[in-house]
C-alpha cells in the first residue's frame, strides 16, 4: 500500500513538472504570437535599389525619451504627446524607386506571413492594379487596439508601418495637415483645420 502511494506521488510530481513546463512554453508561445511588433529587416535589401528611403525606428525607451521632451504647454505638441503616450514603438520603412518592378511579392511575403497570424485583423484592404494597394491591420488585446500595421504598395513605392501600443486611429488619421505635420497632398485626406 505504501509502495503504491509512493509510486502515485512520483507519477503526480513528474506530471506536475511536465504540466508546469508546458504551461510556461504555452504562455511564451502565446506572448510571442500576440506580439504586435513585426520584423521588417527582410526589406533592408531594397534600400540599395531605392532612390529614397525612410527608416524610422523608435523603440519604447526612445519613445519615452521623446515623449518627455514634448512640451505640455504648447497645444500642438500636447496633442502629439497625447497621441503617442502609451505607445511602445513606431517603426516605418519606406522605399521609393526610380522605376517600376524594383520589388516583388516575394519581398513582401515575409511581412504578409507575419500579418496572417490570427491575432491580426485586416480592417482595410484596398487594391488597385493602377495605384497599388493599401492594407491596414490591427491587433486587439483586451478590447483595445494594441498594434497597427500598414502595408502600402505602389508601382514605385513600398511602405511598411508598424505601431506598437494603444493607437487612436481617428486621431492619427486627423493628424495630416495639422500643426508640425504638413499635408502631403493626398486626395481624400481630411479637410484642413479652419483657423
Amino acid at each position, binding site marked *: 500500500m505504501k509502495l503504491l502511494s509512493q509510486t502515485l506521488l512520483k507519477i503526480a510530481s*513528474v506530471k506536475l513538472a511536465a504540466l508546469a513546463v508546458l504551461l510556461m512554453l504555452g504562455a511564451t508561445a502565446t506572448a510571442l504570437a500576440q506580439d504586435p511588433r513585426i520584423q521588417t529587416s527582410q526589406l533592408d535589401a531594397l534600400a540599395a535599389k531605392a532612390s529614397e528611403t525612410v527608416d524610422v525606428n523608435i523603440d*519604447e525607451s526612445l519613445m519615452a*525619451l521623446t515623449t518627455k521632451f*514634448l512640451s505640455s504647454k504648447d497645444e500642438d505638441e500636447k496633442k502629439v504627446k497625447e497621441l503617442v503616450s502609451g505607445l511602445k514603438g513606431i517603426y516605418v520603412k519606406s522605399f521609393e524607386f526610380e522605376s517600376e518592378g524594383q520589388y516583388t511579392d516575394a519581398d513582401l511575403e515575409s511581412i504578409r506571413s507575419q500579418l496572417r497570424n490570427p491575432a491580426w485583423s485586416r480592417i482595410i484592404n484596398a487594391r488597385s492594379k493602377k495605384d497599388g494597394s493599401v492594407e491596414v491591420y490591427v491587433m486587439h488585446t483586451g478590447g483595445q487596439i494594441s498594434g497597427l500595421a500598414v502595408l502600402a504598395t505602389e508601382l514605385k513605392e513600398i511602405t511598411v508601418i508598424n505601431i506598437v501600443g494603444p493607437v487612436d486611429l481617428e486621431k*492619427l488619421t486627423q*493628424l495630416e495637415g495639422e500643426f508640425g505635420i504638413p499635408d502631403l497632398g493626398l486626395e481624400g485626406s481630411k479637410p484642413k483645420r479652419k483657423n
Partner: protein
Amino acid sequence: MNSKQNSDADYLWDKTGEPDPEIQQLEEILGTLRYQPRPLEIPAGLHVGRERSFFRSYAAPLAIAATVAMLLLGLGLWLGLQRLQRSPQQIVKSPDTPQVQPVSSPDEKQNSAVAASTPAPEQKRIEESPRHRVNPSLLAQNSKRDRNTAVKDQQLTLKQQQEARAAKDQLMLALRVTSAKLNLAQKKAQSTNAPDLIHNQHKIG
C-alpha cells in the same frame, strides 16, 4: 529369512530392528549432510537486487524542485523585463522641469550634436544606464564633486537632449507617413465600397 528381512526393514524404517552394517555405513556417510538448524547468515558484501540510481531514488523531490526552479526563473525574467521597461522612463526629465544647462565650448557642442544625431546603440545603452543618471540639484550643491565628472554628466544631458530632438523629428516623420497612408487607405476603401455614391454626386452651386 522373512523375519530377518522384516527386522532389517524395521531398522531401515524406524531403527527398531537389528542394525545392518551396510545401512549403518551409509548412515555415517550421509549423516554429515544431515539438516542442522542454525540461524541464517547473510554475507555482508552480498547485494540483493539492482542498485537504485540517484535520480530514480529522488524522482519526486527532484521534479518538485525543478518545477519550483522554473517558476522562480520565469518570475525573475518577468520582473527583470518589467524593470528594464520601466527604467528609461525614470531617467528622462521633462522639459517643463528645470534642466542643467551645460557650459561647453563650441567644439564640444558640435561634437555632441554630431554624436546625438547618429546615436550608436552602445552609447545609448551607456547613457540610459542607472549609473549615468544625472541629478541636477546634486550637481549644483556638491562643491566637492570632481569637475571632470560634472562636465561629463552635463555633456550626457546635452546628448540626451539632442537625441530627443532627433527622435522627435523622426517621430513627426513617422506620424506624417502613417497619417498619409491611413488617409490613403480610407480614401481607397471609401471609393471601393461606394463607387456609385461618388459617381452620382452632383455639384451644388
